[in-house]
Structures are given as C-alpha cells and as structure tokens.
C-alpha cells in the first residue's frame, strides 16, 4: 500500500466522523496546550533568571569567609573568628589568571548630602569593580586605585541615589556624609536595575577599607575574582585555594564559581519546568485515554469493514497500520492545534503581563509533537491490535 493511499483511507475514516474526530483531537490539543504553555512560562523564567545572573559575567569566582556548613549557606557573613582581609584580596591580585579582584563589604547606612538624607545600601569595594561586574560609569570616574589600606574618601553614586539626593544638580565634587565621615563624590554609575531583589541603583560605592571602618568589621563579606576567559575554572579554584591555604593555614573560606551557581540554579529551574510540564501532562494522559476509547468504539463499529478488508487481501499488519494510523493522525492533529494554542496563549500572556517572561524553545515544540504521536501510538495499539486480530469470518458474520 502506498503512503498516500494509507493517508487517504485514514483521512476518510476521520472525516466520516467529523465531530467525533474533532472532540478527540480537542482532548489532546488541550493537553498539549497546557504542557506547552506551562513549560514556556517555566523556560521563560529560567532564561530570565540566568540572564540576571550572567549579566555580571561568567568568569567570576566568589570567596566567602567561613567553611560552608551542612545546610549549604555560609554562616561566615554573620560574624566569624577568622576574617577574610584586604590583604587576602591584594594577595589574590597577584595570581596569574586574576583579571580583576574586588573586595566587598556590604551594609546599610544613612547618607546625607546638603540637607537631604536617605538610608541606602553602602558597598565597600575596590577600584576594579566596574571591570569585574561589567558595570559602566555614567559620569565622572570610578574609585581610583589608591593604596587599599589607606584610600582617599571618595564615593561613587548609584543612579537612583543620585536622583534622590541631588535631583537635577551636578553631584560631582559635592560632599556626602556617611556615618559621620565625609566623602567627595567623583562619579555616578549607569542605571543597572533590580537584580534578584537587590536594587543596584539605590547604592553608594566607597573604598572597602573605609567601609570596614564604618561598619567596624575586620572581615570582608566576599572577595570576587574575575579570571581570564581561557583559564579553566578548576585551575582558578585550585590556585585560590592554595594561596589562601598558605595564608590562613587552614580552609576557613568558601569558593563559589559562577559556573557552579549557574549549574545548580539551572538544574533547579529545569526540575521546576519539568514538574509543571508533567502536571500539565496529566491532561495529556486523559486525552490519550480519549483516543483509546474512540478507537475502541471505531473498531467495534467497523467490524464488517475490517472483515471485508481482510477478505480483499489486507494483511493483519495492514489493518493494524490503518487503525494505528488513525489514532496517530488524531493525536498529531491535536498536537499541532495544541502547540499553536499553547504558544499563542503564552505570547498573549506575555503581552498582557509583560513581567512574565515566556519562551518556547524549538526542542519543546518538537518534543511535544513527538509526545503527541507517541500518545496516539500507545492509545491506538490496543484497539488496533484488536482490529488486526479479528477473525474475518466472525467479522463478516456480524450484523
């Protein structure tokens, strides 16, 4: 039998029962649409989060004080007996693969300029921060590469803080009071937006040594190291570990590569996407049962036709193929309709709620259609086998 004839025979059977075929298709379509819609949203969020993370570059390693404890989070941030110091940061700078090293102290303080005051996030950082985190200075310049232990009292503003404190005035050269000390403003950063809950524009950057003093700490929060792109992250981690081990005598720090973080994050988000997809897939299962039911009915109704086909010389395999084909065409059509509906609704959602990122990768589209076909196959197997197994004499006697 030629494929074209096969399709024509199958098609004629489906068209003969239009409403029935339509409803069966609808069942699968609803299921596929649900899966596509949910995974699109999941994937959209996945990409959104990854983009948020990678905007700082991927060749970054974070070093925190304290060894990671059993529950995963480093407790070192709260207070620790062995600090991570500015000297550690300076030592790290001498590693051959280090492109930029940024000591980091973070805190919350009230800043004042003129008669305006605002409570804001204060970052104590090093001169190489813009380079490491691919951030841009909008006007003026960033903190200069002073002696890290005795830097001059300069400050650089985030764009939001600049507007809050100075409105349309030019802040460059103005004085800024932070926790009783005076700083001179030498630059304003480009807008960066909110990243994972941190408003990066409502900030002020000052030299790390001065922040340590301000907050009365002896340990940095974190040291971030950007390495050359052609160096393997394992080499970097090993280099940092050896250096700090030599300086501290023991491993009382935690090294986290951006890669590791992205891996963990990516796998969590993948599991989430998979989970919502699977929940949506339950309706696909019900749709499959629908195909099975309708095909069972079709085999019962068309017993005589099956007998005739066999009498006219159709092989069992051909009968099996015809009914399987019907089931698969139903499922495939449902798949296509569901895909279009799913993608359509996803895009519509995105239009209505621009905050909700959606993304439908081609892989999902192909996967969904394949799943639909497999569903047709699985749902059609039993009825089709029943059709193929019918005794032609019995089949012809009926009715």
């Amino acid at each position, binding site marked *: 039998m030629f494929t074209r004839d096969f399709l024509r025979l199958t098609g004629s059977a489906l068209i003969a029962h239009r409403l029935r075929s339509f409803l*069966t298709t609808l069942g699968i379509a609803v*299921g596929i649409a649900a899966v596509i819609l949910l995974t699109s949203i999941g994937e959209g969020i996945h990409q959104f989060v990854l983009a948020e993370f990678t905007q700082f570059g991927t060749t970054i390693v974070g070093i925190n004080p304290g060894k990671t404890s059993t529950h995963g989070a480093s407790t070192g941030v709260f207070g620790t007996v062995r600090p991570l110091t500015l000297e550690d940061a300076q030592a790290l700078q001498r590693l051959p693969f280090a492109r930029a090293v940024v000591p980091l102290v973070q805190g919350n303080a009230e800043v004042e300029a003129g008669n305006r005051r605002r409570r804001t996030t204060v970052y104590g950082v090093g001169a190489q921060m813009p380079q490491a985190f691919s951030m841009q200075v909008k006007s003026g310049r960033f903190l200069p590469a002073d002696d890290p232990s005795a830097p001059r009292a300069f400050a650089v503003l985030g764009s939001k803080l600049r507007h809050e404190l100075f409105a349309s005035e030019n802040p460059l050269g103005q004085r800024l009071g932070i926790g009783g000390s005076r700083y001179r403003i030498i630059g304003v950063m480009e807008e960066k937006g909110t990243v994972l809950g941190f408003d990066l524009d409502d900030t002020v950057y000052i030299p790390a040594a001065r922040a340590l003093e301000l907050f009365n700490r002896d340990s940095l929060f974190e040291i971030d190291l950007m390495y050359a792109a052609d160096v393997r992250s394992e080499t970097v981690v090993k280099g940092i570990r050896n250096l700090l081990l030599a300086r501290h005598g023991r491993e009382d720090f935690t090294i986290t590569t951006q890669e590791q973080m992205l891996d963990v994050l990516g796998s969590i988000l993948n599991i989430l996407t998979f989970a919502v997809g699977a929940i949506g897939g*339950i309706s696909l299962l019900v749709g499959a049962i629908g195909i099975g*039911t309708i095909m*069972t009915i079709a085999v019962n109704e068309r017993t005589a036709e099956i007998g005739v086909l066999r009498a006219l010389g159709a092989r069992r395999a051909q009968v099996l193929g015809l009914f399987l084909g019907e089931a698969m065409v139903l499922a495939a059509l449902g798949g296509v309709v569901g895909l279009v509906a799913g993608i359509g609704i996803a895009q519509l959602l995105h239009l209505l709620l621009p905050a909700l990122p959606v993304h439908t990768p081609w892989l999902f589209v192909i996967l969904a259609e394949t799943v639909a076909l497999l569903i047709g196959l699985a749902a059609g197997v039993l009825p089709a086998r029943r059709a193929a197994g019918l005794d032609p004499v019995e089949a012809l006697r009926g009715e």
Partner: protein
Amino acid sequence: MNGSDISRFAWVALRGYPTRTLLMLIAMAIGVAAVIVLTSLGEGARRYVTDEFSSLGTNLLIVFPGRSETAGINPTTMMGETPRDLTLDDALALTRSYSVRRIAPLNVGAADISWRNRQREVTVIGTTREMLAIRHWELAQGDFLPATDPDLATPVCVIGGRIRSELFGARRALGEWLRIGDRRFRVIGVMASEGRSIGVDVQETVMIPVASAQQLFNTPSLFRILVEAKSREAIQPVKRFIIDTLQARHQGEKDVTVVTQDAVLATFDRIFSALTYAVGGIAAISLMVAGILIMNVMLVAVSQRTAEIGLLKALGAAPRQIIVLIIAEAFLLSSLGALLGLLLGQIASAGIRHAFPVLPAQAPLWAAVTAVLVALITGVLFSLLPARRAARLDPVLALSRR
C-alpha cells in the same frame, strides 16, 4: 419514569459497553485523583512551612538592625551591616514594657570547636536563658544557659545532640571543657533531638552566653533580638514600642526593622495557598479533557442507539425524558469516576504521608469537594449536546435506519 428506573436504565446502558465505560471511568478518575494528590502536596508543603515557622515561638517579633527605604524585608536588611549596631543594652531596654513577656538577644557566627583531638566547625549562637522558653526547646541532659546578668561572659555552653555524639561519642559530655575559637567553655547541657527550625539545625549548633559570643566574635553588636509579646493582641503595640524605644536610643534615627511572626506566617501562607490553587487548577484541566471525552462517547452512544431512542419515542417517551436518560448516564459515569478518583487520590496522599512523614500531605476539603463537583458538572454539562441531539431524533427516521 422514576429515579430508580432512570438510574437502572443508565446502568444497563453503561454495562452494555464495559471497555468504553471503564476507559471513561479511568479518565475521570485520573482527573479527580490528580487534583486531590497535587493539592494535598501543596497543602502539605504549606502546613510544613507554617508549622516550622510556628515552632519558632508564639507571638514573636524579630528585630533586625538596619532599615531600607522600601518597606519590608529585603536581602540587604537580612545580611547587611549598619554603622549603628543593635547592642545588648538595646535588647535590655526592650524588656521595659508590660506587654513584653521576654526577650532574647541573638548572635550567630561560625567557629571551630575542639575537644581533645577532635575538631570541627559549627554554628555558634550567643543568647540568654530566655531563648529556651521563647523557642520551646527542650534539653536532653543538663541545664540551659544560666539566668545570670546578660553582660556576664560565663564560660559555659550547651551543645546540639549531633555535636555531642561526634565529639564525645559514648562518653559523658556534661562537665567537659570544650575549646571554641580561642576560648574554653564547660558543657552544661545537651539539646534534645527534636527542635529543628528554619535555617538553623539545633543539632549542629553550640549555644553560649551572648556576652561570651560578643567577646568570641569581637563585636559589640547583636544579630537579632527576639521579642515575645504577652498575647496576640499585644503584638502591634509591642512593635510600636520597639521602634519608638530604639529610635529614642539611636539619636532619633529609625534604623531597625521589626518583623512579626504573624506577618511572615501570613506571607508564607499566601504563597503556598496560591501555589496549591495553581497546581490544583492545572490538574483540573484534565477534568475538562475527561469531560470532552464523555461528550464524545455520549454522542457516539446516541448515534449507535438511534433505533433504541426511536423505539422509546414511539412508545411515548417525551423529549425531556430522553434528555434525562442521557444526562443520567453521563452523571452516573462521572460520579463513579469521581468517586474512584477520590479514592485513588486519598490512597496516594496517604502513601505520600507514609513515605515522607514530615510532609502532612492531606488534600484540603475544598479541593476534594471542588474536584468532585467539577467532575459531576463537567459530566452533565458535556452531555447536554448529545442529549439534545437524541431528543431531537425523528422517531420514524430513527427506526427505519438499519
């Protein structure tokens, strides 16, 4: 035709096609069971988290140093430092309200501890005796931190059960001297094995007097102050009292954040409830698919039973009676399916509870009721079209066809 006749008629019709009926039952059951199981998971997660938060204490307020312009908690207030710290004196000032039952200052850090040649790094909590009552913790051996002046850096410690077994094995821990950082502390108590709560595993911590912790970490500041109000109604007044008191002590600067346990609980409750609704709703899509299936099969049944319907009409059945018959069949189908699904869903939930005892997975009543109702309504709604089609059949044509 009375009710029992109608249901018998529907039952016989369904029994006539066992395969088809079984498949439709399974379809309906899957939908209902999916809703039940998924909402029970969501509800279980919600209960788990809120229970964990409730176990933090009752009528609790938590004071953080630092405050950001945007209200609420944000990551910076959780971890950042401020120029002006919360001090032990700040904490003690908070006891001067009638509505405050007790307070506990809290300092947290990581440090090495060692005993003889065994060593490990642990989370060290600096606090006072009140902590025991606030968190409802229990001791396995010995006593908790002494009720002395909080300013007194007594060299004693209470250790978690796992630390006890790791450092001391089968030996007696009470009375032994531990080295924490560069200081020595005497073990006076061991925590009981229960008492896990969000973030901190009591089993993995060592507790020392708050003043000792400040010396150990070389800081005058506190990480948090836990405040327990006398009653639920007292929570808001206490919150205002805390803010006012600390503002007065901090030269008029509002630089603390006070979070009530209720607010945190309510937030989690909202998040998880929304999650449960969403997941249940997604699962309910399968109920719709099952409804479409029932409509489809009822349509087939109507066209297959054309002669039968024609005969009924010829015997004097009114269109309304035909409609009732078809709907009754669909109703029977969906109610049986819903019951089956309810049963399967409850069994699966019980299985989850059995496999993960910490997760109280139990479908909320609203979910079970809604799932069954939606199943029934879908069944009836989707059988309207076939029923009307049957009622409109021309009896002469219906009988003459084949």
